[in-house]
Structure formats: C-alpha cells, structure tokens
C-alpha cells in the first residue's frame, strides 16, 4: 500500500488505492486545499500510485 503523509495532521497512514484521487476520496480530503507530491514530485489528482510510492498531502500556504 502506498504510504501517505498528511501534513495538516502530521500523520502517516497507509491507504489502499490506485490513484491520488482515490486516496483523497478515502481520506475525505478536499483536493483544493492540498498540493500533492509523489516521490518528491508534484502530481495532479489523476496520477496513478503503486505500492512503493511515497505520497505527501501538503497544505496550501498563502500567508505573507
């Protein structure tokens, strides 16, 4: 199962899923409030995920 880090909750979880979209749905996370990295590369919701992938759901930061 791909390992998923949820930055907002500072938590690592394992999710059975074949795409980023599925991960977000299963974790009930609004795709608009996060940017998604897969193995340190920014990806979109459509991106496929496999066993060894390391996914990070990082909060969108806007303050200045």
């Amino acid at each position: 199962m791909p390992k998923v880090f949820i930055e907002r909750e500072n938590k690592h979880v394992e999710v059975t899923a074949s795409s980023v979209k599925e991960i977000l749905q299963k974790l009930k996370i609004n795709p608009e409030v996060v940017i998604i990295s897969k193995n340190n590369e920014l990806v979109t919701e459509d991106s496929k995920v496999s066993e060894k992938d390391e996914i990070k759901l990082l909060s969108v930061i806007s303050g200045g």
Partner: protein
Amino acid sequence: MRYARQEKLIGKQAQKELSKKTVAIVGLGALGTNVSSLLARSGINLKLIDFDKIDLTNLQRQSLYTEKDVNKQKAITSEKKLKEINSEISITSFNEKLNDSNLHLLDSNLVIDCTDNLTTRFLINDYCYNKIPWIHTAAIKETGVLFNIIPNKPCLKCIYKKNIDLDRCEDFGVLNSIVSLIASLALTQSIKILLNKDPETNLIRFNIWNNNLEKIKVNKTCEKCQKSS
C-alpha cells in the same frame, strides 16, 4: 566599500550589474519588509507596492516598522526606512492595491510576491507570464514556501489550480523566524536570478519547527504551460 563583503563572494562586476537592476516587491508585510531590507543592503533598486497601514500586531515580524509607525502607510514608511539603510539605490513606493488596471507597476527585472492571497498571486502570474521572472513566497504558522517562476519554465498555475480561501495568519498565526528564513532564501534566489546563476528549480518548503526541508520537482501541468511547451 559598502559592498566589500558581498563583492568578495560574487565579484565586483556582478555587484555593478546588481546596481542596475530593479526588484518590485508586492506586499510589505512580514516577507516584504524582511526581503526588501536584505535587497536594499545588497545594493539592488526597489519598487515597493502595498496599500495597507501598519498595525500593532505587525511589529512581531514586519522588521522595518517600529511602535511610532503604527497607523502609517506601509509603502511610504518602508521607503523612508530603506532609504536610511541605503541612500545610494533608487527606491520608489506605491500606496496602491495591485489590480487589473495597475499591473504595469510590476515592470522591473524581477518581482517578489510577498502578498497574502492567491488572487493577487494569479494577477502577478498572468502579467509576468513568460516575460518577467518572479519569486513566489508564502508563510504561515511554522512553514514557508518559495518557488522561482522563470520565463518558459513552470508557472504558479502548475502548482495551484484554483483560487481558494485559505488559512490566514490572523487566524492561524505565524512565527517571525519562518518569514525571516524565507526572506533570506528569496534574497539569495534574487541574486541568482538577476545574475543568471542557476536559480533553484524546485518548490522549496521548510518547516522551521522540525527543520524539515522539502525540495519538490514541479512540471508544466497547467493548460497554458502545456500548450507553450
């Protein structure tokens, strides 16, 4: 003499080149005041853009302002303070909110986004697109981000697809250490961009509470960038 320590690193010729460059700073809050101070000290000309007034709660992190500045205009106050730091550079200030009709204020060699909202950032992205290099910076709580947006390379929309309401410093707070760190990264990247010396291509994210640094590769994923590549 003034730039002797910096010249030792970048060279006399590069310092001369920097003295001919102008950086436009959008937003004179925490990031804007910190980075403009570093740029002024480095001998780079400045255009300062902000419409806001100084509030007592700004003093915790907005390094150009002191108690007697509360309620004064940020742009004019910053100009005055920066001229005290370096009278040899050109500094102009604009007490304006960036909108569709005054985007020409961004005309410069480099724009640094020190705003606090995606609406203004998307305005900068559209105006500067494949024309003016700019640095996107942001910070909240203990985390900051920086991304260089260089003509013909991925743009802001390759990271953020939509304009949404996000966490605000008023509600979630921000440490002054993270803004000063991001401002330092921005100054370094400014010098690299202005001198054409391999600026960072990754999205940089730093959490100053746990010292976690992330370098994330960004690809051309927005419609506009995909068409132009």
